[in-house]
């Protein structure tokens, strides 16, 4: 029983990070109808920059800032430089371009940093705290939950309460009508990519200390899990990302705890296949998903 409580706790922590990463996929999907298969590789670039800055300054916090900034910059470059070649007619072209990006970014990282797994230390202790004699969350897990939830909340405020958010939503739903209303849709798309890439980089930075370590493929599994989260929650639904994240986080945590870490990807695969086959528009999607 104690073990289950502990696993649920870590599952929630992992789930919020997944939710943040999945939100990045949802943002880009809503704005451009592209599933950003390069999100993982892009996020890892941001984490490498952040870890380098942490190494140079000795401060984890400057690393965090650098990760977010580098992720956003990369989002800008990718949107302006690569994905604008995606054809609106063929949904495959966006995926293929993103795959090209994955290959380019991962091989560049391999050339610059090598393939070794570089351990990354969390800024706080990752020993679980005892609550009433039961090990629950570690301070780092707690920090992760607070940051991820805070950011999700901030993004929600941005989208719902500000005029920038209104324009972002409008540009995503009806690009042509939005242009007729004076919304600079191309600029909104870029802003969306920058926000999404920053969020994904931050999520990857938060997740890395709990993984094997940093290497060019460090976010592959994170991406696959986040994609599953986005599908479980509905690719069109930012709110679904949080619920989906918690679902996937808890499932992987429980499977890892009772059956071993190697089985976690199989659990994710099973969950993804089940949701796709039973409810392709997502478990928590309010409206019916638009056709891809």
């Amino acid at each position, binding site marked *: 029983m104690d073990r289950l409580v502990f696993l649920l706790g870590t599952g929630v922590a992992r789930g919020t990070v997944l939710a943040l990463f999945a939100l990045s996929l949802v943002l880009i999907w809503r704005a451009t109808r592209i599933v950003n298969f390069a999100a993982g590789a892009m996020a890892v670039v941001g984490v490498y920059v952040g870890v380098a800055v942490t190494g140079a300054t000795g401060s984890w916090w400057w690393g965090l800032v650098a990760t977010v900034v580098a992720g956003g910059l990369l989002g800008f470059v990718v949107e302006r430089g690569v994905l604008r070649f995606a054809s609106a007619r063929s949904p495959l072209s966006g995926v293929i371009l993103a795959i090209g990006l994955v290959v380019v970014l991962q091989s560049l990282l391999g050339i610059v940093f090598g393939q070794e797994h570089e351990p990354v230390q969390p800024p706080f202790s990752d020993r679980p705290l005892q609550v009433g004699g039961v090990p629950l969350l570690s301070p780092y897990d707690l920090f992760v939950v607070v940051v991820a939830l805070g950011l999700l909340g901030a993004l929600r405020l941005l989208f719902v309460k500000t005029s920038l958010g209104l324009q972002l939503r*409008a540009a995503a739903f009806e690009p042509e009508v939005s242009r007729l209303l*004076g919304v600079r849709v191309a600029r909104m798309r870029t802003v969306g990519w920058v926000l999404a890439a920053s969020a994904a980089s931050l999520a990857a930075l938060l997740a890395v200390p709990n993984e094997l370590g940093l290497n060019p493929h460090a976010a592959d599994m994170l991406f696959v899990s986040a994609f599953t989260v986005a599908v479980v929650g509905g690719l069109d639904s930012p709110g679904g990302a949080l619920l989906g994240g918690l679902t996937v986080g808890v499932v992987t945590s429980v499977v890892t705890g009772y059956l071993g870490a190697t089985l976690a990807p199989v659990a994710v695969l099973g969950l993804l296949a089940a949701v796709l086959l039973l409810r392709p528009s997502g478990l928590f999607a309010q409206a019916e998903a638009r056709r891809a």
Partner: protein
Amino acid sequence: MTAALALRGLVVGHGGAPVLHGVSFEVDEGSVVALVGGNGAGKTTLLRTVSGLLTPTAGTVHLHGRDLARVGVEDRVRAGLAQVPEGRGVITELTIEENLRLGGLWRGDPADLRAALAEMEELFEPLARRRTSLGHQLSGGERQMLAIARALVARPRVLLLDEPSLGLAPLVVAQIMRVLRELCDRTGLTVLLAEQNVAGALSVADRGVVLGLGEVVADRPAAALAQDETLRHAYLGF
């Protein structure tokens, strides 16, 4: 006096064959011009060209004497040209209020935006009552009112309307047309109104331009046009 809107020799194609073959006419400041013609005459293509969504292969569009060739869609709105698109273009995932605000966001003046919203809710009373409803909960008439109100929030000098009466009850159409006419008389707004509902459009318009297979067939005062038997039979079908 320069015309509010002047089109000269517009040739526009969709990929292959041109849809408009050299269309020229002018819309005077403060007037309502009805652009009428049957299915496939090129009305929507013409409006989309004026608002910048389509690029003409030849010809020019001038707004108050300014050539719009190098002005993008978003900047044409800033130059005082608003369009209510075909099918109204209400963003159904947003609330009425959000739709309305969207129309004036580019002005970057919150106080003015609030004033504009209040005016619109006065002008189109049903919208005020359903401020927080989502777009997809509205009836056809309410959507059309919302689309027009949203375009007016931008305080345009020229308004393009694409088939506002489509799918609406005659009573609602009459109400919308009346509001438009009043607005023009009061504020000096210029309106280019593309319609298949010829009788309704000519009843509020000052002038009528008849489009047939991508060319201007007739361009004369609305009352005269409504009298012309041959034209009515040949191009307008009533």
